[in-house]
């Protein structure tokens, strides 16, 4: 009997995996994400010049063009750009993850409460999220980040503050839709308490869209983190963050283009990977959105 259960579930999983694997793009995305995550974990150790990552400088070797010793060249302080880019992966992934997780937690809470309670509570919470949607997110994040001062955590908080309404709206919409499901009516009819309905019948069924949104948002969160860094409201030196690296390097173009182009490419590849993966996941997990 247990065997039958396992095989039934296994079949569903296999079917999803099959569908996922069918799409070469999703696989490419998964591969990119795995690579990015791997670099995020081991990046600082595989960096050829770990000293530079910690802030070491080598002013005698400024602006060396890409070569075997420095595949991505060196920057204005003689630091190895490859090392900085590799080490920067962890910062970006961590920050992106932080933003998405914070946004999801808070947004899901707000959305679930609003959608489930309805009425006055819903109205107030949704007006609040409207407000956040109306205020340009980047400007809000800039103002908050500027107020809190430079630093990774501050940046994550600043972005997450403008991030949760998306989740709140998604979750609220899903909760409202699930609330109308017949099985929820059935649960109510057998006398289930609101909490039971929310946690047992509603929330488990909206995990998929939330996970899909999280995976789709990862890339965008990394991009927003980099944007703040680019504007110059980012991490503290010597933390090697991609957007900050790009922001510093842009004034050295076109002569020392490698200082700007490689961090930018790293950013692009990581975001692209997460977006491809998110797209693929959506196809598998969120059948309604499947095309």
């Amino acid at each position, binding site marked *: 009997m247990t065997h039958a259960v396992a095989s039934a579930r296994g079949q569903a999983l296999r079917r999803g995996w099959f569908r996922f694997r069918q799409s070469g793009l999703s696989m490419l995305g998964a591969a990119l994400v795995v690579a990015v995550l791997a670099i995020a974990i081991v990046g600082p150790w595989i960096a050829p010049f770990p000293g530079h990552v910690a802030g070491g400088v080598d002013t005698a070797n400024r602006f060396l063009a890409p070569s075997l010793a420095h595949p991505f060249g060196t920057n204005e302080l003689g630091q190895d750009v490859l090392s900085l880019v590799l080490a920067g992966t962890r910062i970006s992934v961590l920050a992106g993850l932080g933003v998405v997780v914070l946004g999801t937690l808070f947004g899901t809470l707000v959305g679930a409460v609003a959608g489930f309670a309805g009425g006055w509570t819903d109205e107030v919470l949704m007006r609040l999220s409207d407000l956040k949607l109306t205020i340009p997110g980047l400007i809000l994040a800039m103002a908050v980040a500027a107020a809190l001062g430079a630093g990774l955590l501050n940046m994550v908080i600043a972005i997450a503050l403008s991030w949760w309404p998306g989740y709140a709206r998604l979750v609220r919409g899903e909760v409202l839709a699930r609330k109308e499901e017949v*099985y929820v009516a059935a649960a109510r009819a057998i*006398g289930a308490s609101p909490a039971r309905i929310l946690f047992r019948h509603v929330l488990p069924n909206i995990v998929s869209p939330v996970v899909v949104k999280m995976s789709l948002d990862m890339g965008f969160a990394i991009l927003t983190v980099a944007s703040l860094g680019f504007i110059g409201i980012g991490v503290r030196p010597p933390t090697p963050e991609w957007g900050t690296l790009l922001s510093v390097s842009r004034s050295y173009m076109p002569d020392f283009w490698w200082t700007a182009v490689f961090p930018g490419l790293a950013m692009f590849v990581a975001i692209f990977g997460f977006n491809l993966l998110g797209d693929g996941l959506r196809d598998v997990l969120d059948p309604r959105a499947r095309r």
Partner: protein
Amino acid sequence: MLEIENVTKVYPGRQGMFGASPPVTALSGVSLAIAAGESFGLVGESGSGKTTLTRCILRLEAPTSGHIRFDGEDFARLTPVALRAMRARIQIVFQDPFASLNPRMSVHDIVTEPMVIHRATLGLGARQRSARAAELLDLVGLGPQHLHRHPHEFSGGQRQRICIARALACQPAMVLLDEPTSALDVSVQAQVLNLLADLQARLGLTYLFISHDLGVIRYVCDRTALIWRGQIVEEGTTERVFDAPASDYARMLIAAMPEVRFD
């Protein structure tokens, strides 16, 4: 057992983008009385108010006016705790067996859920609940080997049996059957109808059977009422309603019944 007295339900109009829609009267002055142990049929076409009536009976919605009494107790006056206890006594099987089961729960969890909710009154431990779930599955013609499977692994007829098992979990006195077979193929429908008839005979249940299919109603119901635009237009024993319909609407409906008849 169930008394519905002069129930009216009005939905307020909604504010749309380009203006407000008028309020909708879904039920107006509906009165019915269903005796214990009988099988009562309620026939109506789409928009006639039959679904609203079930929602009011189950107290998923409150009627605008009127009273609904079950075993002599008025729903509107019950405390939340008492209401919850009442819910163990009156159960429902919905039309769409595909939508009425939570896809994330196993059959075991689905069937035991009412027992968990009403564990205070039923006094069943976890093991007893599982045992009872197996019994219930057996009762509705499904083997206990299905307990740990998920709804999507079942056919429509099997799902409807699961729904029936869930409805019977708390040993209710009354079951509302809201078009329980209209989503099923004819051959499957017959089995489910037989199961329902069998269960009623064995457990002494009271049925409120709602359908638009006159043939089904005629087959399973002792008494029948016709609802049209929120009003009861005809009520009586099934035989009487089919053989000597009193209202034009009933006559029209019966005439329109598609039947395999060549005479």
